[in-house]
Structures are given as structure tokens and as C-alpha cells.
């Protein structure tokens, strides 16, 4: 059950924050309000009238709009086409001939009315995410909604873009619109919400006012006191373990994604790569892991050249790797926990040889890892796909930390992971660092990078703009993530 007897009221002109961890049931709740899912029990009342939404069409008609976490825009369509879709202006009666001029004009009118600049003729796939989000908001507003649901809208934005979005939200509520703001980020909730409802495991566990402290909100959200800071001693870096020189990598479309990156990760330190998603971090890590061809440059693990080696050999030369897309690249969902824990060593003693797998050692290993890494599962034979995101990630981390490591690379190590598991994974990463392993962490969550890293490299459009200390003010890091250098020169190494 994703939602269990939830009552929630949204007043006109307010920002109502729905706070909860990933998987708490926030999106499920809102998808019912938007007609994408139908509730088994209970009712929805709009302006005093009970309503039943069979599809989003009904919800839109009742004045409810939604901006989804993953944008609902057709990449090969123009902005105007996307906004018109489903509510097209047509001529010629039953022929349904599109009136493109009127669609364009409607877009420009709404855009002007609410101060949200969009270019009606631009193709969605050419726009940066911030602009795509504006298109989504304009799309909802042209349908004259009174209530706007924003599902994790800041997940893909730079800190500056987030500020802009919050300003837009304020001006919308000033015009009498109501907003439901779904998020798990405490700072933003405190900055914008008029009222906060906290959801945990499908139930409402409390309401709070915006002046509640972050620690209290976090405790409410998780169900126990949590430490938001990563506990760690100062790093004692040794010699450079990973040396990247002039690395150039193309993305799937053949467009340059990594454009001459030089980077060094030393033993016993965490190097964090900060940056808005899609600035080449993915391709950089894939190139280091041998998953993507490097166009130029060198990658060295101490004295061994990694370029051109197979991923298997790179892993076995002492590199641990937590991929960013856990369900595709991290685990085999249909396989058991025990099998997933030896995916990297299935053909090596003691787990197996070239012909067979030794079942008993695999089980023994699994039991050991399960207790060591606090993996919550019924048995080692449970299919990994049935575990929660946090426990799946612990399986990946446990597997990758089970080999002797020289370098540990974690991409988005806590994406879609509950707060309790985040704490645990972070502490394991710091533990690995303290053993003298070089650690490279890539994350689009700035808090995570700042919390874990001893040095932060900010990546923007395929280049490392600067390497700064984690004490650098947020504002400055945000500017760097948006590609603006200047005041940071003294922080550079």
C-alpha cells in the first residue's frame, strides 16, 4: 500500500509542502490528485465539490496542473507544440487542422503574464533543464489551473535556478494560485512553504510550520533522530592514485561530453565532483571504468594505464565502482542477493572457477556481507529487485568494497536511497577513505558532495572549472556549477 488513509487540505494562495523520503508515497498521492491513478478509497473535494478523476483530463478541467519530476515533454517537439498538446487550437472542424499561430500566441501571452520567458519555436531537446521546467509550468498555466503540483522540481536545478523557481512560486501564489510542493529537501521547504505535511511509509506523520528546525523536520521524516552532517576526521592524503590527463570523451550522440579533463585523486582522500547533471560527469566516470571509449588523454591507476583495458580488468586491478543507474548497471534484479554480491568474482576462487560456482561459499559470503552492511532482506536467496532502493544500493556497495581496493568510484551513491541508508553508505565511504583508498564521488546533490569531499572539483560543460575546498560558500559553488568563474581564482589548486 503506497497511501494509507491520507487527509490533506490545500488553501488558495498557499504553498503546501509535502515532505517525505523517496518512496514515502508522495508522488503516488499526487498522481491520484492528477487523475493518473485512481484511489481505492476516499474522495477528492475541489472547491467544496466532491470529484472523481478518471484521467488527467478531468483533473485539468477541475483546475489542477502538475509538473512531474521527469518532465513530460516530447523532446522532438517545439515548445509551442508541447504546450498545445492535448488542448490544441484547431481550425477546419472535424479535420482538426492545427492553428499554430494561435498556439504560439497563447504561449507568448502566458509567458508574459506570469513572467516566465520561453521561446515557443525552440525544440525541447535543445533546451537546458531549467528552461524545460519553465515550459512545463507554462504548459500548466495555459490550462488555467488554480492548483499546481510540483513534484521534486529542484532535483535537476542549480542552486541559482532553484532560487529563481522559488521566486516564480512566490509570484504565482501572490496571484492566487495554490501550489503543492513535493520535496525531500529541508532547506527549500523552510524557505518557501506556508504549511508542511510530512509523509512516511504512506501515512501522514505530522504537520509542521516553516519555522520548525531542520533537525526536527528530518526526525519527523525519517522517524528517528538523524545526523545530517557526515562525521569524519580530516583527511590524510597520500600519493596520487588516479591520474587523469587531458581526457576527452564523446557522448552517445557523438557530441563532446568530456573536454580535456585533468584530475588527480590521492590515496586517503575523497574527491567530490559537483555539477548539474549532464555536464559530462557520467561520461567521465564511464571512460575511467572502460565502459566508454576515450577520444584522447590518459587515465592512470598508479603506474598502470587504464585506457583500452576491459572493465573486468579495471575492476580486478583494484577499482570499486558504484554506477549511477543502480537498477540498470548496479544489480541484476532477478538474481538473488547472494548472487549479486559475487557478480564481480563469480569465476574466481573461492566462489567458483571457469566451469562452476561453489554455492556454499557464495552463501557464506552473502551472510557475512548482509550483517556487515546491514542489508535488510529475508534471506540471501531473496531477489534483489524486491528490496528497497537503499538496501539494493547497500548490496552494490558491499560487493564493490569486498575486493582489495586502490580506488573507489561512486556515482550518485545515494540516489533514491532512504535517509537511514544514506547515513550508512556515507560512513562506509569515509571508512574506505580512512583505510587509505582513493575515493572519487560524483553527485548532483551539492549537500552530499560538500559533506563527503575533502576537495571539490566543479564540472561544467565537460571541463573542470575549479577545484575548491568544501568550506567554499554555497553561493560561490552554485555560481561555479552554472559556469561562472571569477571570485574563485584563489580557491583553485
Amino acid at each position, binding site marked *: 500500500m503506497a497511501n494509507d488513509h491520507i487527509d490533506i487540505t490545500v488553501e488558495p494562495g498557499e504553498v503546501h509542502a509535502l515532505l517525505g523520503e523517496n518512496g514515502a508515497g508522495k508522488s503516488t498521492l499526487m498522481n491520484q490528485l*492528477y487523475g*493518473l*491513478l485512481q484511489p481505492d478509497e476516499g474522495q477528492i473535494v475541489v472547491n467544496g465539490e466532491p470529484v472523481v478523476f478518471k*484521467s*488527467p*483530463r478531468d483533473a*485539468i478541467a477541475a483546475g489542477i496542473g*502538475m509538473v*512531474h519530476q521527469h*518532465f*513530460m*515533454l*516530447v*523532446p*522532438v*517537439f517545439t515548445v509551442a*507544440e*508541447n504546450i*498545445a*498538446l*492535448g*488542448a*490544441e487550437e*484547431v481550425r477546419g472542424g472535424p*479535420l*482538426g*487542422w*492545427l492553428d499554430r499561430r494561435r498556439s504560439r500566441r497563447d504561449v507568448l501571452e502566458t509567458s508574459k503574464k506570469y513572467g516566465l*520567458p520561453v521561446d515557443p519555436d*525552440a525544440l525541447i531537446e*535543445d*533546451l*537546458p533543464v*531549467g*528552461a524545460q521546467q*519553465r515550459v512545463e509550468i507554462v*504548459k500548466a498555466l495555459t490550462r488555467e489551473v488554480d492548483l499546481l503540483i510540483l513534484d521534486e522540481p529542484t532535483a535537476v536545478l*542549480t542552486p*541559482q*535556478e532553484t*532560487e*529563481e523557481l522559488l*521566486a516564480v512560486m512566490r509570484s504565482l501564489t501572490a496571484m492566487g494560485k495554490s501550489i503543492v510542493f513535493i520535496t525531500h529537501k529541508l532547506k527549500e521547504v523552510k524557505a518557501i512553504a506556508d504549511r508542511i505535511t510530512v509523509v512516511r511509509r504512506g501515512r501522514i506523520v505530522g504537520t509542521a510550520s516553516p519555522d520548525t528546525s531542520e533537525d526536527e523536520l528530518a526526525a519527523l521524516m525519517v522517524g528517528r533522530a538523524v545526523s545530517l552532517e557526515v562525521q569524519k576526521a580530516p583527511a590524510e592524503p597520500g600519493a596520487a592514485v588516479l591520474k587523469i590527463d587531458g581526457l576527452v570523451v564523446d557522448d552517445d550522440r*557523438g*557530441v*563532446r561530453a568530456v573536454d580535456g579533463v585533468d584530475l588527480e585523486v590521492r590515496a586517503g582522500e575523497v574527491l567530490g565532483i559537483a555539477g548539474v547533471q549532464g555536464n559530462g560527469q557520467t561520461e567521465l566516470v564511464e571512460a575511467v571504468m572502460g565502459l566508454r571509449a576515450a577520444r584522447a588523454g590518459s587515465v592512470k591507476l598508479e603506474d598502470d594505464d587504464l585506457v583500452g583495458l576491459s572493465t573486468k580488468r579495471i575492476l580486478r586491478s583494484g577499482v570499486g565502482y558504484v554506477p549511477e543507474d543502480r537498477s540498470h548497471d548496479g544489480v541484476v534484479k532477478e538474481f538473488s542477493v547472494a548472487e549479486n554480491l559475487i557478480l564481480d568474482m563469480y569465476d574466481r576462487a573461492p566462489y567458483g572457477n571457469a566451469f562452476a560456482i561453489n554455492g556454499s561459499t557464495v552463501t557464506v559470503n552473502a551472510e557475512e556481507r548482509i550483517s556487515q552492511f546491514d542489508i535488510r532482506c529475508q534471506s540471501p536467496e531473496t531477489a534483489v529487485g524486491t528490496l528497497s532502493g537503499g538496501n539494493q544500493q547497500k548490496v552494490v556497495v558491499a560487493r564493490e568494497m569486498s575486493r582489495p581496493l586502490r580506488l573507489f568510484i561512486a556515482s550518485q551513491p545515494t540516489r533514491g536511497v532512504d535517509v537511514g541508508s544514506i547515513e550508512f553508505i556515507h560512513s562506509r565511504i569515509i571508512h574506505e577513505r580512512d583505510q587509505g583508498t582513493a575515493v572519487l564521488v560524483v553527485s548532483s546533490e551539492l549537500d552530499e558532495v560538500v559533506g563527503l569531499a575533502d576537495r571539490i572539483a566543479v564540472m561544467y*560543460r565537460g571541463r573542470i572549472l575549479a577545484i575548491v575546498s568544501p568550506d567554499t560558500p554555497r553561493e560561490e559553488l*552554485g*555560481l561555479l556549477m*552554472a*559556469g*561562472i568563474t571569477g571570485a574563485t581564482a584563489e580557491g583553485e589548486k
Partner: protein
Amino acid sequence: MSTATVEDLAEVTAPEPFWTRYRRLGLALILLGGLAAVVFGALATSEDARFTLTENAEGAALAIDGRFGAVLFGVLTVAAGGALFAGVLKRHANVWLSLGILTFVLSFLCWQVAGEFMPLVDTTDGTLQLALPLILGALAGVLGERSGVVNVAIEGQFLMGAFAGALVGTMAGSVWAGLISAAVGGVIIAAILAVLSIRYLVDQTVVGMVLNLFALGITGFLYERLMQPNAQTYNQPPQMPEWRVPGLADIPVVGPVLFEANLLVWLALGLVIVIHFGLSRTRWGLRTRAVGEHPTAADTVGIRVRGLRYLNVLLGGVVAGIGGAYFTLVATGSFTKNMTAGAGFIALAALIFGRFTPIGAFGAALFFGFAQKLATYLSAIDSPVPSQFLNMLPYLATLIAVAGLVGRVRGPAASGQPYIKS
């Protein structure tokens, strides 16, 4: 407010890679043209190649010295390729591409026809007739693909259409009843495809292949058991009449091909235009494309994704079924077992080669039709080029297109993926 706005980011677009699709195509044309000028030019005899406007060697004709023509058109191909490569008039790159292909074909023809004659009317007419089922089949594919359903069952729809057209046409004694039944036959296959792939989420390619085998089996069985013993009652459908548009039919070459023709010719050409404008300019088209590219986005604005997919696949069934009618009501006077002989797969190839667009598919279908016509012509004049080579062309061209050698063919993003509400 901060200084970093999204506009700053939007201005800088990713640098265009040097080897664009048109650069590669341009280079391919330059190489082909050079090859044509040298090889065809060297092999061609210095006799007149006559392209006659009548059916025989006499009468009005366009004539050119074979060797001179082969070299000339080869050089023109190189020029078109060069223009494409250098990016001259970039907006009309497709015109250069078409010119390049056309001149290459002409160069080849000059070599082959030198000392012989080629009747233009017959060639054009034959090309169009052979292309007819391919056009209709590929259009059926376009309808399915653009809404996100892969239709590899075009062959099965052809067979079913051809069979139903022959059977009902004969029994009712009316070619129009046959035509309508052919459409129904196509729809039956399309309906099974739609229900299994949209409702029951079965892999669309697998369903399509199974349906092809099913259509082959059932029509083959009924042919042997029902039609063969009683051909007069079940398998002698009336043929589609040729209609002549007075005046227009007297235009040389074009007239007899387009304006003294059967209904299918006009239907096919009309459908190309209707589907082209329908997809690009109407509400139905916008929604269809949205459903094929990003069904969830379409769902969130209240579009019924599955409903629209059903509609399009069934419409495709109508079009492919009519394509099947060509085989029994136009080309030959009766149904025979497996008479489509892979035409559905060539239609599929035309669909992919034509980049999933109606106009592109039409062009590809014409090209493949021409290749088939040329194959029969070459064997008639005892050409040293084996006709099997030309019959292979559609598959070769598709292989090149799919392999991405001349720029990747990007189909609709959600094509082949069932839509499951989360």
C-alpha cells in the same frame, strides 16, 4: 536574483561534429559518381542509348551517346555529392541527394542502354505499379510506428488482403466488394497485432513475425482446400478497371502513367499526401507523434494513449490490406499461395529507408520499385549485370540505412515499447 540565468546556458549549443549525415552522404556520392564515370564510361559502347516515348524502338526518343552519357552523369553525381559535402544550399540538401542518386542511375542506364532502347512509358508505369504495394505497405508501417507500434506484419496483411480480395471479389462478382474485403483482411491481422501488443504487451516484433506465418498458413490452406478445386467460384476476381482522365492522359509519359490508371494508383498517391499532412499539421498527427515519442507525456495531458495506438494500427491494417488487393485485383487475376513473396518485407525496408516519414517511404518505395523493374528490363536485354543483384538492392539499401553508415536512422523514441500505466 542571481546572475546565472538559463539563457546564458541556452546560447551555446553543442558544436556540430564534422562528419554530419550530409557530409557522409556527400562523400558516398562523390565516390559512387567517380566509380560511375570511370567504370560505366569505360564499359559503355559509343552507341546511342535511346529512351523512347513509345513502346518500340521507333518514334520519338531521347538519345545520347552511351559512353558520353555514362561519363557525363557520373561527373554530375560527383558534383551533386560535392555540393552536399561542401554544404551548398544546406536547406535543400535532400534535393542534392536526390539529384545525386538520379544522375548515378542515369549513368548506369547510359552504359546499359547504349546500342539498345528503353521504353520510358513502360519503365515509369512498371516502376509505379511495382511500387504500389510497397507504398501502401510502408504507409501502414508509418501509421503504426509513429504511434509507437512496430508493424512487421505487413507481409501478413498483404497476404490476407490479397486472399480476401480474391475470394470475396469472385463470390460477389464485384471488384469493389473485393477491395473492401481486402481492407477488412488487413484489419483482421492488424487487430490481432494491436490487441496482443497493446493490451497484452507481447513483444511486437515477435507477434508480427508470428502473424506473418499465420497469414501464410491460413491463406495457403484455404487456397489449396477451397480455391484450387473451385477456381471459378472462388478465385477469379474481376480486375480493377483503368480509368482515363480525358486531356491529361495525353501528356507524354506522365499522362499514360498517372491519368490512365487504376484506382489504387490514385489512392496510394493520395494517401501519401493525406498522411504526410495529417501527421504534420493536424491534431490527430500531433497526438499520434506524441504517443510514439513519449506516451507518458501524452497521457499526462489527457490523451488516450492506447486508444490512439489501436486507431492507428487498425488504420494501418486498412492501408496494408488495400496494398494486398493489388496482388489479386490488379497485378494478376487470381490468388496463389505465398504470392506476395516478401513484398511486405521490402515495404518494411522502404519504411526504414524512408526514415519513418510518408514522403521518405514513398521515395524509397519508388526506388525499390524501379530496381525491380530494371531487373526485368536488364534480363530482357541480356545485360551482363545479373538481375538478382538488383533484386537484392532493397535489402542492401536497408542494411546500409540501419547500420547507420550514412547517418543513423532515428525512429520514434517509444516505438516497440508497450505503454504501461505506472
